């Protein structure tokens, strides 16, 4: 749609002509003025004006003359908002963020930390720029809205895969060339903690880890397995927990590239042999992300195992299924078995004894397949299918296999 405001002479004419049959449908400001029974013009104060962009009531002095044009804009639909650009010329200092970039994209934790960096930069005297140091292939397109003022992107096979030593060498190079005020790392299992710790050890800095409340002066971090809050002066190197600050969402940033002087090749002592294929069923139940769990309602066990394999799910079981010998004991989910933390828990033929429900208390999404619509598992589930488990599993298996086949084709095409 065009953003050019156009006048609609017909609408304006109707708005002016109170006797026009369509007048009531078009005139906006007009509703506020009603001809009273005595013929007097009455103003309805509630109808006067409109709510402005800041939530403040505005009165339109154009007397409806601007209404038509306003309507025209309204009809142009939601538009791309161009966020204001936050630019830093000749920064006085730098705050460096080293995002995890899982799968080449910023994680939500990375974005929070970029937000944190800006929060700190704002409070420190002088103009600061937030630098992101990214390693390896990047698929991220929105560095600007995530709050990256400067980007150091290091690519090349030496940074691919598992390469903490080479990355550390690069960070040391950044340290000497930028002298950053702070280094921020995500405190995560995706590499942030490792890299941050390596840098801290190399620079001889005492980092704050598991930090969650940080200003440029003081830092509150967790200690003693999350049971302690340590308050201290904010150190140079920080490893931050998730949701430590809000991500940037109101500004755009320059994403100016900084080229580093050549980074020396580190002596690689840790030789990456690549990721190892792990059978989903070998993943410990407590760690598994997606569990397909079987209960008393399963009769076709071959089909169940096949479905689990096709979906790539870790298998779980209720106590009864274990007692009856269909599943090994270490697969038992529940208060007397394993307490699971899966994001998705697909319970087939489990009605949900209290002990079982306790064991899946931390699961995000529970899906139930059951014949009994009134059972506790269905009450807990975000999605329930009431019906014969064998039939539904059969369909699910088909879908999974199709999905897999499609994916395989896609993969081939991509390769081609």
């Amino acid at each position, binding site marked *: 749609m065009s953003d050019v405001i156009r006048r609609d002479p017909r609408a304006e004419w109707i708005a002016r002509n109170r006797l026009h049959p369509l007048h009531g449908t078009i005139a906006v400001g007009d509703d506020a003025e009603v001809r009273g029974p005595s013929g007097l013009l009455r103003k309805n104060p509630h109808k006067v004006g409109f709510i402005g962009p800041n939530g403040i009531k505005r009165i339109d002095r154009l007397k409806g003359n601007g209404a038509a044009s306003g309507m025209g804009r309204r009809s142009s639909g939601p538009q791309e908002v161009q966020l204001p650009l936050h630019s830093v010329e000749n920064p006085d200092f730098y705050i460096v963020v080293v995002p995890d970039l899982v799968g080449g994209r910023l994680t939500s934790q990375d974005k929070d930390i970029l937000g944190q960096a800006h929060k700190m930069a704002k409070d420190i005297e002088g103009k600061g720029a937030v630098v992101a140091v990214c390693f390896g292939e990047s698929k991220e397109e929105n560095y600007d809205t995530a709050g990256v003022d400067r980007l150091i992107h290091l690519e090349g096979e030496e940074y691919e895969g598992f390469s903490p030593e080479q990355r550390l060498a690069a960070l040391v190079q950044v340290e000497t060339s930028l002298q950053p005020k702070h280094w921020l790392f995500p405190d995560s299992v995706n590499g942030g903690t490792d890299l941050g710790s390596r840098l801290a050890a190399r620079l001889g800095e005492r980092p704050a880890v598991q930090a969650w409340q940080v200003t440029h002066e003081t830092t509150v971090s967790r*200690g003693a397995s999350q049971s302690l809050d340590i308050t201290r002066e904010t150190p140079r190197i920080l490893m931050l927990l998730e949701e430590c600050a809000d991500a940037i969402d109101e500004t755009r940033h320059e994403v100016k590239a900084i080229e580093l002087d050549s980074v020396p090749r580190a002596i690689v002592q840790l030789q990456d042999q690549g990721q190892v294929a792990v059978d989903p069923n070998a993943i410990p139940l407590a760690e598994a992300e997606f569990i397909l769990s079987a209960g008393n309602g399963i009769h076709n066990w071959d089909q169940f195992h096949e479905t689990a394999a096709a979906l790539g799910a870790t298998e779980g079981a209720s106590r009864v299924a274990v007692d009856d010998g269909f599943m090994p004991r270490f697969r038992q989910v529940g208060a007397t078995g394993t307490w699971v933390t899966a994001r998705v828990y697909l319970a087939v033929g489990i009605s949900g004894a209290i002990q079982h429900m306790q064991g899946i208390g931390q699961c995000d999404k529970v899906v139930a397949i059951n014949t009994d619509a009134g059972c506790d598992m269905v009450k807990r589930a975000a999605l329930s299918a009431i019906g014969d488990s064998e039939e539904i599993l059969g369909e699910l298996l088909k879908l*999974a296999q199709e999905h897999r086949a499609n994916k395989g084709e896609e993969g081939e095409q991509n390769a081609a």
Partner: protein
Amino acid sequence: MQPNIKQSLDIVSLVSIGQHPQSGRVRRAEQDGRAVELGMNLGGDNLTVLHAGDPQEQALRTYAGMGLSSMQVLNLDTQDDAVPALADYLQQLRPDIVLTGVRAESGESSGMVPYLLAEKLNWPVVARIADIVSVEDGVAEVMLALPRGQRRALKVALPFVASVDNAAPEARQSAYGPGIRAQIEPLAAVKEEDAVRSNWSEAKAKPRPKRLKVVKAKTAAERFKAATAKPQGEAGKVLKGVPAKEQAQEIFNLLLEEKVI
């Protein structure tokens, strides 16, 4: 699985005093216990279990209860920094592998000890290992624990420092008898006070506020709506009397949405 060890190994497992998450009581630390377990599986008798702190601490007996005949304790006070003492001791002992937990369960739990030791000894450090698969000709093949049960294989030359992840084999049961009988040998240690720490204040952890869905309302009406609107209905969707095919499709869509497939 028995590791494939083709040479004699001197292993040091560093242990700290753990803390139970529910009761706060001292105990064998989860990951340190795994470090000892891994050390026992690899090194057999050439395992040194080392602690820096108070040799009288009862929780040390829970490590000994795994079947250790003796433990070494670098005698330190609570305000002392463990790293200089450990580094000094390891410098003299020159073991092949030093195993630690990822993070201590008490104190600062910064997880820096393996990195600092590695830096001081100038050894490589491997974080979060799940297993040591083999050691051959001075090179160890190590399994790294990645999130959600994934693994990465790595080769590293001896000597090195490794921190042991929760994905490593669980520590064996600690038995009372061997625990009380084990010899705990206090050793004199380099004492350096942890000066940074003295400037801290420590308090019981406050519960972290859960991030709310912030509605950036531009208008009063939107703000009002955000404040008063009922949260989205929690009741789950129930598919009843629907053909199995559609039910399966619905479930499958949810799985796709959650990105578990």
